């Protein structure tokens, strides 16, 4: 397992929390986005590539063994959310 500093641990925690929040809220986003301010709608879709970059970063950290066991469990939960909710973001990105 790679050595993990307190700063890295905090960074992993932040990335994991943000990814779980974004992927977890997609059903609610899909249900309400048409009522948002138009710029909020646009920015949400335009900035989604950042979430894909975040997934890549987390995947690298997992491969390097940087996640604590409890973080690894939440990462698995994230992967389930990604698989379940990817069709939602694909639909939103297509509009």
């Amino acid at each position: 397992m790679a050595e993990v500093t307190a700063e890295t641990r905090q960074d992993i925690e932040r990335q994991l929390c943000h990814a779980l929040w974004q992927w977890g809220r997609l059903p609610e986003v899909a249900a309400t986005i048409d009522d948002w301010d138009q710029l909020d709608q646009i920015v949400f879709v335009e900035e989604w590539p950042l979430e894909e970059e975040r997934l890549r970063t987390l995947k690298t950290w997992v491969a390097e063994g940087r996640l604590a066991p409890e973080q690894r469990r939440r990462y698995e939960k994230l992967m389930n959310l990604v698989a379940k909710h990817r069709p939602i973001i694909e639909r939103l990105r297509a509009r």
Partner: protein
Amino acid sequence: MGPESISRHPADRLIRELLEPGRAAGPDEIAQIVARLAAAPFSPRLVSVAIELQGLVYQGRLIYAREPALFAHLVQRVIADRQWAVGTTEQQYLGTLRRAVRSASARLLMYERRGGILAAALARTRQAVPPRQRGARFLPWLYVVYSADRGTIISGYQASGLEELNIPGNARWLK
């Protein structure tokens, strides 16, 4: 957004016009659009901040649930995404976006998204962001998104490649 609040700036009208099929773009017109994007302010709107950033302090300023878009984007790019370095100011962040738009090799494109008319610039991060302002996870490409409806920059972030960006297939590339 009602039609009365849509930007009537000549360059923004030109962007809308150029999205019409069959309308060619001359070099002067492309230069006019680049100049408009490079001088545009960041959107002045208040926007929501990601929950894990709320309550943190950046540059002596407490981060609230809603912040002006420029500050909200800056703290997201610095603290959460780590694309820009800690210490980067709002003006420095905006400066890098403007430098990206102006860089000689920047690509320029326009498209419609969710009923809004957008222009965007794609440039090499190294040509726009000085080494001291690059974050721990800086990426090779810098993407700047501009609303021709509002006349403001609405986003600026880094990406690992063109294929990672969600650019519509019918986007019009001007350069």
